[in-house]
């Protein structure tokens, strides 16, 4: 039978070669965005080295985390949002729930982005906050703000994903204090701290010195383990890598190296593998290159599972690479804005084919500014159309067994391990932050990509193909500058009614706890939670932290 099959295949190949003989030499060799060479056709000869004897829901999870893919529950629709003060964002939360945005089993999922002053850790009255308050995220810094955030939502069935920056620990402390004021235990909290310290390798913002950045990350993990066991204390922000310019293969390699650096830091701090690794999760980018992206997600699951196993994780579910996709904003163009809807649809398609757990779809006008109500709804509806109309979620890993996809998955994995191994041999991701190596490699990749766009070698419709001189004059969503006054007033009112002596004393304790963390003699999070209970703001808690942990600018 085997020889019969192969003689049939050999005959087909001969016929194929004959059909293309006249023009084959003129075909230009193509490659993926990551630079992997592509053939025009793949056959079973390409998958002889692949392990096709795998099933979804079973280690190494190449075909997905769950045995039946999306059949039991579809991916979570986790639209990023947040603007103005909490009052504006609260209205938006209610609106998104009314629009049908939901997570697993109907849970509410709020993927709330902070404005950059909050992320950086300055309150609304700081001079450097001017121009950025409530603009590209919500301004939340006081206990009142957090009370309003959690008001009336059922804590058992509501996920708060807080897209923070360096204010990650103060933000969690403020949330915990608000939950306590409701009379509920912090153990009921569900959601996610980003804990994105290692993003400083690619995002150009000042942050903690590397040794303290990792210490703070672990401090949050430990607090969450004791006080909010369902909380996801770390997100590995691979999206930051690809948006900075990493190719999909680099995103895999550096992202997994980032993850390994968190695992290593946790193990060094005495945590047991099964106690924290299963709570790590990922946010990953997704461009319009459908097959390369789908293969990336498949390779990612299998590589992470292997890393977890090597680190000593024993429970299979703790080896799950749980992935939230944020569709790439970099690929959206300001030229001919509506074209971005086609890009977003392809990005979402790739993420779903890749079997991810949660998706944020960018809005077509994000190349201009903050999305309008309409563009934000259209982005959500794009997910919902894929979810309900396309049939995409009926079958787990529908591309599994495809000669091309299996080969591409294998090749991307092999290339990513090479970069990963080199970085590990040189001291790992943390060392890569200190030396700037990770940033340099990604910046160089970004520059090479841009040169290809400038020359037209990489076609971008509306930018270097089918260019139009017509003005778009698109009017984006505006957050009125008066929001800055409103935020300052809210802050003043909050400060006026609190017990200032209690706040001052709590901040002294925070300062002491920062030193204790540096000395390895005690945690910081409990002091921050206490400061939040007594009324300290986001920016106030960050002052002693900045003094203690340095302020490291990498460029």
């Amino acid at each position, binding site marked *: 039978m085997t020889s019969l099959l192969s003689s049939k295949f050999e005959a087909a190949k001969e016929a194929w070669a004959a059909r293309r003989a006249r023009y084959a030499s003129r075909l230009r060799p193509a490659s993926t965005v990551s630079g992997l060479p592509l053939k025009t056709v793949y056959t079973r000869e390409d998958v002889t080295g692949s392990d096709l004897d795998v099933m979804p829901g079973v280690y190494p999870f190449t075909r997905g985390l769950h045995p039946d893919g999306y059949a039991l529950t579809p991916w979570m629709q986790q639209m990023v949002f947040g603007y103005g003060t909490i009052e504006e964002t609260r209205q938006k939360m209610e609106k998104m729930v009314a629009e049908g945005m939901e997570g697993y089993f109907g849970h509410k999922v709020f993927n709330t982005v902070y404005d*950059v002053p909050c992320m950086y850790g300055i309150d609304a009255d700081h001079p450097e906050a001017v121009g950025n308050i409530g603009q590209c995220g919500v301004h939340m810094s006081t206990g009142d703000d957090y009370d309003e955030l959690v008001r009336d939502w059922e804590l058992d069935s509501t996920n708060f994903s807080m897209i923070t920056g360096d204010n990650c620990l103060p933000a969690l402390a403020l949330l915990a204090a608000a939950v306590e004021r409701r009379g509920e235990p912090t153990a009921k909290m569900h959601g996610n701290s980003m804990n994105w310290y290692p993003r400083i390798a690619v995002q150009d913002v000042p942050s903690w010195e590397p040794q303290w950045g990792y210490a703070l990350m672990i401090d949050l993990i430990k607090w969450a383990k004791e006080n909010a066991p369902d909380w996801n204390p770390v997100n590995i922000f691979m999206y930051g890598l690809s948006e900075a310019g990493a190719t999909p293969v680099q995103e895999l390699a550096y992202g997994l190296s980032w993850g390994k650096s968190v695992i290593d830091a946790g193990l060094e701090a005495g945590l047991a593998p099964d106690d924290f690794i299963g709570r790590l999760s990922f946010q990953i980018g997704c461009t319009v290159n459908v097959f390369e992206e789908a293969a990336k997600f498949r390779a990612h699951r299998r590589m992470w599972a292997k890393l977890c196993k090597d680190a000593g994780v024993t429970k299979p579910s703790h080896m799950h690479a749980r992935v939230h996709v944020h569709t790439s904003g970099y690929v959206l163009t300001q030229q001919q804005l509506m074209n971005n809807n086609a890009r977003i649809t392809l990005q979402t398609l790739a993420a779903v084919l890749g079997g991810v757990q949660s998706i944020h779809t960018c809005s077509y006008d994000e190349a201009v500014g903050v999305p309008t109500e309409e563009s934000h709804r259209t982005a959500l509806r794009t997910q919902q159309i894929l979810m309900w109309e396309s049939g995409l979620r009926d079958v787990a890993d529908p591309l599994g067994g495809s000669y091309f996809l299996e080969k591409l998955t294998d090749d991307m994995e092999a290339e990513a391990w090479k970069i990963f191994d080199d970085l590990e041999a040189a001291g790992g991701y943390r060392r890569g932050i200190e030396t700037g190596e990770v940033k340099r490699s990604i910046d160089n990749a970004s520059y090479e990509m841009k040169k290809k766009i400038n020359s037209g070698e990489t076609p971008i419709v509306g930018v270097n193909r089918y260019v139009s001189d017509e003005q778009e*004059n698109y009017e984006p969503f505006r957050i009125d500058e008066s929001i800055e006054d409103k935020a300052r007033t809210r802050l003043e009112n909050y400060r006026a009614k609190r017990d200032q002596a209690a706040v001052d004393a709590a901040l002294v304790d925070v300062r002491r706890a920062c030193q204790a963390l540096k000395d390895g003699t005690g945690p910081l999070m409990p002091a921050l939670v206490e400061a939040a209970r007594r009324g300290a703001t986001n920016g106030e808690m960050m002052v002693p932290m900045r003094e203690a942990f340095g302020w490291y600018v990498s460029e």
Partner: protein
Amino acid sequence: MSEEHIKVLLAKKKIDVHGRGSKLIARELRDAGMEVVYFRFGVAEEIAEAALQEDVDVVAVSIMTSGQMQIARELVPALKKRGMDQVLVIMGGIIPEVDFEPLRELGVHRSFPPGLPGGVVADYIRENAGTVTLV
């Protein structure tokens, strides 16, 4: 000014995340033969001070997370206060096209959308540096 040495202060706010665009334009202006000083600022006044100290021909501000209007409103008077009324002021990044004209009225000579080849910006600088007055 086309044959002369051109020095550009490329300013980006410290809390403005995602430096991909600003770092690309820094490289592309360098490729075009210009000297680029990459500068992170807290408030707009600091840009003017750096522009004076570095004695630049061009002040370019990269915007990712908004604030272009407030920056322009403070930056242009701060430059004039220091006697730098011959400096060319440009902006680029995530700025709505409809803001380009209001920015021009505030004294920003030209604004650019994201994603353009850096050569387009370099050509504009070469044609206009040294020929403008801040209004």
